[in-house]
């Protein structure tokens, strides 16, 4: 009698390949802002978790900036123990539903996976998302006790660093107040990442969970303008402050024509859509004018978000223009593939040199040069060199600049003694995350410059530990 087959051997997929993420049809999804990925079902997750080799030395964890015990939570899924998987995950990473969706797994945990050497890696990101989504579908437990510590903490900025820092401190019993400059909390998770990648409902759930822990959110307050940082200590009675103000200042190229009508920073383009819901205009009041042809300059995740949003806003031709080659692209590979499926055209080794406009000040084209790769530059990447006489013009109605952001100088400029690097990042003690000001800590993009959600979350978490230790030790 042949040996009984395991259930997963009946699955219509090869065990060598990563279980594909169910996703919406590209033509349909490019019409709206609903989420593209539909998420694993329980069978997908069990099947995928079974692919894990259970290595003696789980190197996947080394690839994770916050060192989630990945193999442990994957094994818990394989054993069908989702509550345990959820608890392992959430202890290590307070924002699993978000990171499972937006982390660049292919250059972190999944890059290290032994399976990846010959086959597809274990889909750690998809599994993380599955567990977090399952957790969200469960009834809420008993309300946690109200804060019991006497020292109050202020968190400046409600992006990933601030949310995680607030959550970790609240779990230690501290009363935490989070100040947000915009009218809704979430920072870049709200204004930057579009809903087709990260639905607002997930962000809202995480924020509600923090509120249940006793965290207070105050919107429409700019620390450094409405309240001076020193007044948080002197007048408002906080014992420590965490700064997680991100890197929100858009860079421009400095090429002619950038102020023409129809040129947006990716920040403006995405904020109008995500925070202000311009895709619902005129039901929502904020407009965004998107023409038939849109060129996005840059190759990061923000560029992918912008170009895919342009498609959804009605652009028939959406292109990405980047001066380096595909190999130097910094976006998550999944977003790149999704963009291609949605009809986005990529123009590598193409350097924009001028935005061209008509007499009324509206964009009509993007003048560019073809490039070729030369010797490596200071970043170690091959330096793109212009090909002489290769100048040409993309006829476009809009140009969206997505060439990076820098930390917002607003708080540092208004706070005496808060030291910054020449490029704008806050100077912190690497161990604790403490700034040049006593009891003022910082983390996330405000310190590192534009990076990832998971790194910001990690920084928020370690700063929370440092704050707890310093306050307990009476330092």
């Amino acid at each position, binding site marked *: 009698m042949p040996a009984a087959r395991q259930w997963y051997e009946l699955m219509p997929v090869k065990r060598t390949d990563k279980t594909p993420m169910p996703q919406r049809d590209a033509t349909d999804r490019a019409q709206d802002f609903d989420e593209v990925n539909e998420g694993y079902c329980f069978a997908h997750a069990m099947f995928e978790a079974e692919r894990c080799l259970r290595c003696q030395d789980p190197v996947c964890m080394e690839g994770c900036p916050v060192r989630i015990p990945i193999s442990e939570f994957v094994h818990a899924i394989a054993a069908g123990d989702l509550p345990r998987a959820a608890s392992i995950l959430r202890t290590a990473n307070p924002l699993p539903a978000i990171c499972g969706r937006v982390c660049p797994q292919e250059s972190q945990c999944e890059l290290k996976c032994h399976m990846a050497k010959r086959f597809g890696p274990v889909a750690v990101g998809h599994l993380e998302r599955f567990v977090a989504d399952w957790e969200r579908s469960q009834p809420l437990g008993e309300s946690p006790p109200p804060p019991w510590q006497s020292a109050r903490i202020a968190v400046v900025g409600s992006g990933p660093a601030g949310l995680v820092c607030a959550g970790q401190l609240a779990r230690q019993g501290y009363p935490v107040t989070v100040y947000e400059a915009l009218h809704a909390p979430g920072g870049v998770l709200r204004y930057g990442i579009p809903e087709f990648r990260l639905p607002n409902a997930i962000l809202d759930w995480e924020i509600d969970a923090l509120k249940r822990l006793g965290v207070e959110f105050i919107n429409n307050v700019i620390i450094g303008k409405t*309240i001076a940082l020193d007044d948080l200590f002197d007048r408002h009675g906080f014992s420590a402050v965490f700064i997680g103000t991100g890197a929100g200042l858009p860079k421009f190229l400095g090429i002619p024509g*950038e102020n023409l009508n129809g040129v*947006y920073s990716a920040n403006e383009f995405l904020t109008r859509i995500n925070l202000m819901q311009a895709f619902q205009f005129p*039901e929502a*009041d904020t407009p965004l004018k998107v023409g038939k042809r849109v060129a996005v300059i840059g190759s990061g995740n923000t560029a992918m978000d912008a170009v895919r949003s342009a498609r959804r806003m009605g652009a028939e031709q959406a292109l990405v223009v980047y001066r380096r080659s595909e190999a130097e692209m910094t976006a998550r590979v999944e977003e790149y593939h999704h963009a291609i499926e949605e009809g986005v055209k990529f123009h590598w080794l193409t350097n924009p040199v001028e935005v061209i406009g008509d007499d009324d000040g509206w964009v009509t084209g993007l003048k560019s040069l073809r490039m070729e790769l030369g010797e490596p530059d200071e970043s170690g990447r091959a330096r793109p060199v212009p090909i002489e006489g290769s100048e040409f013009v993309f006829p476009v109605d809009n140009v969206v600049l997505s060439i990076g952001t820098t930390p917002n100088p607003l708080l540092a400029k208004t706070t005496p003694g808060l030291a910054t690097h020449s490029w704008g990042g806050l100077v912190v003690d690497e161990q604790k995350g403490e700034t040049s000001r006593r009891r003022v800590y910082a983390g996330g993009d405000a310190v590192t410059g534009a990076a990832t959600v998971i790194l910001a979350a990690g920084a928020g978490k370690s700063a929370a530990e440092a704050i707890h230790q310093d306050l307990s030790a009476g330092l």
Partner: protein
Amino acid sequence: MYKILAREDFSDVTFLLEVHYPMLAKAAKPGQFVIVMVHADGERIPLTIADFSVERGTITLVVQAVGKTTREMQQTCKVGTALYAVVGPMGMPSHVGERKKVACVGGGLGVAPVYPQARAFKQRGAYVIGIIGFRNKDLIFWEDKFASVCDELIICTDDGSAGIKGLVTDGIAKAIEVHPDIEEVIAIGPPVMMKFCADATRPHDIKTMVSLNPIMVDGTGMCGGCRVSVGGEMKFCCVDGPDFDGHQVDFDELMSRLARFKGEEREALERWTRNENCRLMGEEPHPSG
């Protein structure tokens, strides 16, 4: 929060709101602005802080009902109601330097934001010449308030129904003629007015500060929508401004950029007006708007 404590209508398009937000009132300085949302689906619109009172915990905003959002504010912002969001104070405060003689020029709605600057100059001992311009007599507001902080007040109306017949630039010419020793002009009003004020003072080499009002979203330097060219450099009005040297500002670019959502603005206003008419008639707003 953001409760409206007082309202005064200056004309059928211009009105004043006194909004309760003690923390902001304490932080506000002349020349700064706030961003306001009327409701959750509303736009974020920048409005200059025309006045503030730490004692009352309020800021004063003067609004001209020209577009959908401001028309809606005119309709819904009654005493006792509250705005959905108010945030600020944004921008750099106006620099009120040591001056012996200044002219403070306000055109239309611009009279409100230039008032706290005129008062600040007066308090610092300067001789203040006020020049305020309106289309006609009926639109004049804050004449007395302005007069109380000015040593001289010149009123200009387009049709001559009050004061001198002419634009504020005629007022400026007249003031310079009498007072060639004016050290600084502060001009606030529609962009085209500020452009011509800068042109009027340029030959006399009188420093002219203007307060710009470009389209913005967040107001904290994040979107870059409010970028303006000043002396050939890109500046963000929300964090670098709103006050700039009028002789350096590229007003033509500013005016072009202000018109970039003209079509959408018209569509929103027409849709709102149609729905408003339906509501007045006691009918359900048409689903298509």
